[in-house]
C-alpha cells in the first residue's frame, strides 16, 4: 500500500463558468474509457447544461453522499466510496469547492489529495479566479472577493494544467442564449464576472498563469535564481498582511525563491498581544503556512531591527511589507516599522505592497 505511486492530477483551467472546462474533461474521460481505462465520475456538477449532461452519460458515476447540516441535506462527493471502488482515474468537477461543515475534509481539493495518495489519477476543473495568490488582483478586476480558493502549491503539484479557452464574445453569446445559466441567473452574472472587460482581463490572467505552469514544468528553469533570492514578509495584525503574504509568495514562486513569513513579538510568542491582535497575527501565520511559506515568531522589542537582523542572518534579499497607514514627516521619530526597515535594511530591496481595491466603474 505505501509503495503505490501517487496518482496524477490534471487540471482543466478556465476563466469563467461556461467556457467548456467540464465538457472538455468529460470528453477526455470518454476517450480514456474507450482506450480501456477504468474511470469513474466522482463528482459532476450539471448546472442544467444539456450538452454537458449528455457528455456525462455512459460513464460510471459514484453516487454523492448526503450530509446533514442544520437540518438540511447537502450533497458532497463520496470520497470514501471512491477509495473503496478504487478506479484508475476519477473525474472531480469544481476543484475549489468548500465542503459543508461536518465533512471529513474542509475542501474538495483536500479530498482530491486523498484520492491521489491512494494512487488514483484525477481529472478536475477550476477557474483562474480561485487561485489564492491572484485573490487581490481578481478583486481589483471584478469587484468580487472570491472565498473559495486553492493554494498555489496544490496547482503547482498538478502534473498537467490545460487552458480551456473560449473567446469572451463567444462566451457572452452562450450566456445570452441561456446555455450557461438559466435566464435570471444569467442576467445577474452579466453584472458581475461577465462584463466584457472583466472577462478579457480574467482570460489574460488565465493565459499567463497557464504559460507559467508550463514553464514551471520544464525542468531546471528556476535553478539559477533559487540561490540568488530569498523573500521575507512581515506579519502583523494589519488586515492588509494577507495581501502582502499573497504577493510575496507569488513573487517567490515565480522567482523560485524561498519565502519566510515573520512576526516580531517582545515575548517571543503571541501571548502579550490583545486578543483581537493575537487572533489576527495567528490567522496570518496560519494563512502563510497553508501557502507553504515558512513562519517564524522572532523575539524582540523593536520590530524593524529584529526583522532586519533575521533577514541578514538568513541571506534574505527582499522584504515585503504592507503600506504604512501614514508616512511620518519626521522619520527619525517614526514608530512605523516599515519606515524604519527602509532606513535600516540598506542592503536589501523593500517591497511596499499596494492595496488592490476594486476598480471604480
Amino acid at each position, binding site marked *: 500500500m505505501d509503495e503505490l505511486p501517487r496518482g496524477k492530477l490534471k487540471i482543466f483551467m478556465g476563466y469563467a463558468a461556461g467556457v467548456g472546462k467540464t465538457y472538455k474533461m468529460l470528453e477526455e474521460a470518454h476517450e480514456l474509457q474507450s482506450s480501456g481505462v477504468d474511470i469513474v465520475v466522482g463528482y459532476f456538477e450539471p448546472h442544467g447544461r444539456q450538452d454537458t449532461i449528455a457528455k456525462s452519460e455512459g460513464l460510471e458515476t459514484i453516487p454523492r453522499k448526503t450530509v446533514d447540516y442544520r437540518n438540511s441535506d447537502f450533497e458532497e462527493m463520496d470520497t470514501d466510496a471512491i477509495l473503496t471502488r478504487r478506479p484508475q482515474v476519477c473525474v472531480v468537477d469544481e476543484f475549489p469547492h468548500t465542503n459543508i461543515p461536518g465533512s471529513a475534509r474542509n475542501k474538495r481539493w483536500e479530498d482530491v489529495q486523498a484520492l491521489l495518495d491512494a494512487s488514483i489519477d484525477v481529472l478536475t476543473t477550476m477557474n483562474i479566479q480561485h487561485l489564492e495568490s491572484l485573490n487581490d488582483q481578481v478583486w481589483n478586476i471584478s469587484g468580487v472577493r472570491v472565498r473559495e480558493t486553492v493554494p498555489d502549491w496544490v496547482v503547482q503539484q498538478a502534473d498537467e494544467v490545460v487552458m480551456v479557452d473560449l473567446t469572451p464574445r463567444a462566451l457572452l453569446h452562450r450566456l445570452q442564449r441561456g446555455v450557461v445559466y438559466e435566464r435570471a441567473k444569467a442576467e445577474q452574472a452579466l453584472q458581475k464576472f461577465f462584463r466584457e472587460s472583466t472577462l*478579457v482581463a480574467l482570460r489574460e490572467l488565465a493565459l499567463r498563469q497557464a504559460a*507559467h505552469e508550463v514553464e514551471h514544468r520544464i525542468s531546471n528553469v528556476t535553478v539559477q*535564481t533559487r540561490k540568488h533570492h530569498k523573500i521575507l514578509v512581515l506579519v502583523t495584525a494589519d488586515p492588509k498582511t494577507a495581501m502582502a503574504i499573497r504577493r510575496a509568495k507569488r513573487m517567490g514562486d515565480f522567482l523560485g525563491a524561498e519565502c519566510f513569513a515573520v512576526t516580531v513579538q517582545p515575548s517571543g510568542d503571541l501571548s502579550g498581544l490583545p486578543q483581537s491582535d493575537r487572533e489576527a497575527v495567528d490567522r496570518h501565520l496560519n494563512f502563510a503556512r497553508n501557502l507553504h511559506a515558512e513562519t517564524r515568531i522572532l523575539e524582540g522589542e523593536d520590530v524593524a531591527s529584529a526583522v532586519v537582523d533575521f533577514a541578514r542572518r538568513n541571506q534574505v534579499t527582499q522584504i515585503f511589507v504592507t503600506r504604512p497607514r501614514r508616512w511620518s514627516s519626521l522619520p527619525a521619530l517614526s514608530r512605523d516599522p516599515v519606515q524604519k526597515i527602509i532606513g535600516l535594511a540598506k542592503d536589501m530591496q523593500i517591497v511596499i505592497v499596494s492595496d488592490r481595491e476594486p476598480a471604480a466603474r
Partner: protein
Amino acid sequence: MTSEIRRKTPEELLRECQAEEVAGKKGHLKIFLGYASGVGKSFRMLDEARRRRERGQDVVVGAMQPRVPPEIEALLPNLEVIPLKRVDNGAAIDVETLIRRHPVVCFIDGLAYNNPPGLRNPTRWQDVQDLLNAGIKVIASINIQYVAELQKDVEAITGKHVTETVPVSFIKSADEIEIVDAPPEEPTERPAEEQTEAQDREQRLSRLRELALVLAADVVDHQLSEYLECHGLKQQFGANERILVCITPRANIQEMMDMGQIIAQRFHGELTVAYVNQPNISPVDQAALDARLAIASAAGVHIEILEGDDPADALLEFARSRGITQLFVGHSQRTGLSRLVGSPIGKLIRDSRGMDVRVFPQ
C-alpha cells in the same frame, strides 16, 4: 518578444478606434492558435464551421491542410469547400471566387503559406486581408511556429528555420483569438536512448506551448487596452505585470535592471525605464544620469522622459496611464533615513495605489 508586441500608447489606440470608425465595418477576423500540428486546431475550427452551418449560417471552407485526418474528413461532406486555385507551380486560395461567392464566414485552415509568384498577393495572409476588406468574416488557424517575429525563439527551440510566416501585427489585428491548448503527450516507457529523445521532444513542445500561451495573452492584453480606451475607461487594473524603473543620477541601475528583467521575464511582463527631467541638474549628475540611461538603452528597454515640477506626481501620472503594477525606486544610502522625508519616495509610497513600490539600496 515583448518588445515587438509592446502595448500601444493611449493616443495610438484612440487613433485606431477613430480610424476604424471612419473606415466602416470590415470583415471580422478570428484566429485559432496552436503550438504544434496535431493539437486539434483544425478540428476545433472546422467543428465550429459545422455548428455554424447547423445554425443556418452561410459558411464555406476556403483552404484545407494538404493532409486531412479522419475526424476532419468526417466533417467535410456537410461543408461547402471552395478548392484552392491551382497554378503552374503551386496553389493559393481562390480569392476572386470567394469574393464573388461572398459567404458570411470563410474558414481558412493554415494561414502561413507563400503564394506561387504571379498571383495578386505574395502570401496567404494578405489574401485573407482582401477577403476581410471585402466584408467577409474569416476564421483561420495558425501554428505558433509560423509567427514571423518569433522566429528567433522558435529556431532556438526547434532548430528549424521556416520561410513561410505571418507577421504578428496581422495576428494582433484579429478581433478574436482562441488558443487550442493540450499538453504534449507524455513519453511512455521506452529504451533509454529513445526515452531521452522523447523527453527532449516533450520539452521542445512545452516551450512552444509556453510561447503560444504568452502570445495569446499579449493579444488579449492588447484587446483589453483597446476595449477600455474605446469605451473611454481608464486602465485601472492590470492582468499583466508592468514594471516602471524610476531613474535618478544616483540610482543603482544595474541592480534595478537585473531585478526588473528577471521579474518581467518570469511573469512575461513588461519593463519600462523613466526619469523626470530636472531643470537645474549639475554636470556631474547629468553625466551620471546619462551613464545610467545608456545601460538601460543597451538592454533594449524602452525609456520614457517625463516633464513635471513634482517628480513624484509626474511618475505616478505616467504609471497610472500605463497600468504599471510595480514601481522601482532607489533611496540614498549616504543620507539615510532623514533624507527620505524630502525625497519623493514617501509621496510615491503614499499615493501609489494599485502599484507595489520596490525600494532599492543605492
